[in-house]
């Protein structure tokens, strides 16, 4: 019993203190992985904030964007042209989704919309692979997946780029939400659909905008993840990784997605490296969920989520 307590409570920290450089590397790895999760979680947050739809198909949108990009490049398009074309495709997709899925389902319960996005998930998965093929593709955007040494610590170039991209993306989104006319309209819609409608904000346009933006965020996430692990079906499963980030950070908060992502990434890596061996490893799949779950018990609305005030 004492041995167990020692193994759980003391030994991991002794290991950490014993090899500080290694621990910093683990931390940085976790940080980078966390920001990658955040990129995916951001797409969820955008849509949930503006339309109250829990978009399960975000993961497949990431896959779809990456597939389109790689597919276009394979057919000889230069990187820039392929990027622009993919952006056009994602915006077109947003239009199509609004017209075919969202508009007929206006005023339905949230769970119905959630299920509709799962249907969308299946559809996009089949469609993407039908058009572009289902073999694993390499995505090369000119960032080598190699490491360099900085102050005696190994840093991966790709992870660093991903981290910077995430930071830039969040900054752009913050400006977009706070400073532009459309951003203000988006926040108004998020606050109250009907009030927004009554002061003349076109709900349909707003939805298209939001889905387009989250499609573009999906493209960025797709590029980063695709460059890291190749473009393949398993890319869509990172949506499942982004969910604990989402509940930790709160469904409605952009900063929450980032902070949550970092917390989950770091927690997961630390857990895997220092506590994982105790239970036989491979705890990555559920550790994030349990972490988020324990956290939720104390703060049910997540870190930055809106506190739901209930009236009867």
């Amino acid at each position: 019993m004492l041995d167990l307590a020692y193994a759980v409570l003391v030994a991991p920290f002794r290991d950490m203190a014993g090899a500080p450089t290694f621990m910093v590397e683990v931390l940085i790895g976790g940080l980078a992985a966390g920001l990658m999760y955040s990129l995916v979680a951001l797409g969820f947050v955008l849509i949930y904030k503006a339309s109250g739809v829990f978009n399960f198909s975000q993961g497949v949108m990431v896959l779809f964007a990456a597939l389109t990009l790689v597919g276009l490049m394979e057919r000889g398009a230069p990187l820039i042209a392929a990027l622009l074309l993919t952006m056009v495709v994602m915006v077109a997709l947003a239009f199509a989704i609004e017209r075919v899925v969202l508009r007929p389902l206006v005023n339905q319960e949230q769970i119905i919309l959630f299920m509709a996005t799962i249907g969308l998930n299946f559809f996009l998965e089949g469609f993407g692979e039908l058009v572009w093929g289902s073999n694993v593709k390499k995505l090369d955007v000119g960032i080598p997946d190699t490491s360099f040494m900085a102050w005696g610590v190994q840093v991966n170039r790709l992870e660093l780029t991903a981290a910077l991209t995430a930071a830039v993306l969040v900054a752009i989104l913050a400006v977009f939400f706070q400073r532009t006319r459309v951003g203000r309209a988006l926040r108004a819609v998020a606050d109250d659909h009907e009030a927004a409608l009554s002061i003349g904000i076109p709900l349909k346009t707003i939805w298209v905008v939001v889905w387009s933006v989250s499609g573009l965020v999906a493209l960025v996430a797709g590029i980063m993840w695709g460059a890291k692990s190749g473009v393949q079906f398993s890319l869509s499963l990172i949506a499942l990784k982004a969910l604990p980030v989402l509940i930790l950070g709160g469904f409605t908060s952009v900063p929450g997605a980032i902070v949550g992502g970092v917390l989950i990434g770091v927690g997961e890596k630390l857990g895997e490296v220092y506590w994982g061996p105790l239970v036989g490893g491979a705890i990555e799949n559920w550790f994030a969920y349990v972490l988020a779950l324990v956290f939720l018990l104390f703060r049910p609305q997540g870190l930055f989520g809106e506190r739901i005030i209930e009236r009867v």
Partner: protein
Amino acid sequence: MIYREAGQFKNTYASDQAIFPIVQDRVIVIGLLAAAFGVPLVATEYWLQAVLIPFLVYSLAALGLNLLTGYAGQVSLGTGGFMAVGAYSAFKLATAFPALPILVVFPLAGLAAALVGLLFGIPSLRIKGFYLAVATLASQFFLVWLFNKVAWFTNYASSGTITAPPRTVLGIMVTGPEATAGVRYVVMLALVMVFALIAKNLVRGRVGRCWMAIRDRDIAAEIIGIRPLRTKLLAFSVSSFYCGVAGAALVFLYYGSAETLAFDINLSFLVLFMVIIGGLGSILGSFLGAAFIVLVPIFLTNAPEALGLGMPVALQKHLELMVFGGLIVFFLIVEPHGLARLWQISKEKLRLWPFPH
């Protein structure tokens, strides 16, 4: 004209409380049941194994999830995990106590799943809606990982699979490789019948009304004296019980042997689809949804061949995914309340038929 309750009077409380108050309904149900039990005499092995047995197994799981999501309003994505608990505990029980009758093993496995469900239902007291849905994913991933990792659950089998041991009921082989599809079908049908009856009575009674009150407005329910703690946890454990039995049946009566892969997140989504497409908060809906989800892929696989369109397997798989996804969206748009509502509407129409008013 034919489907009409005119002239059927209820003279006793018992007749007023009947599940099927209309004679026509009773006739239909009894006829259906008789037909269902008669099916093994005429159906081929393929139909039993590929359509009817999975339909019954999934119906049971959908029934369980419907109690939780449809009646008590708690969205759960952990169905696969709870089914795994049922399957693995049934396997452990059946192999550790070979003398235990197999028909006792199923409810016991359900009880084990109920305990686990109780545990994972605790967060529902604090969190709601999608937060809860995501939180239940924790149970899904954790449980599957646990059964994968701890070799004790598979009796240290090197392949990591669990295989249904051969067991008999009244001298007839019902599980294991020698059990015929017909026998397994009949056992499954009997199980589903009993549990559907129990579920129907649960949701008509005090328990079900408490669940629905919590679903419709939890704070109001609390004020009129329904204890959220007990009600929600009861919903979680009863639902997990059903899922556990379904999981045990999945391995013992359908697959024969399985690994943890059979209980992954896709299973959870599949069952959730059944519940939503069939109709939330409807016992009949669970069956209709299960039938839909079981039949559509089979239809999609066989339709191109029947039409004489030969196509590559990969292309067909992708088309199947697209059609499946499209159908789900289509159904949600046309009838968000599920197939059960469609049935209700057609019943209303049938009462007037052939008159317009």
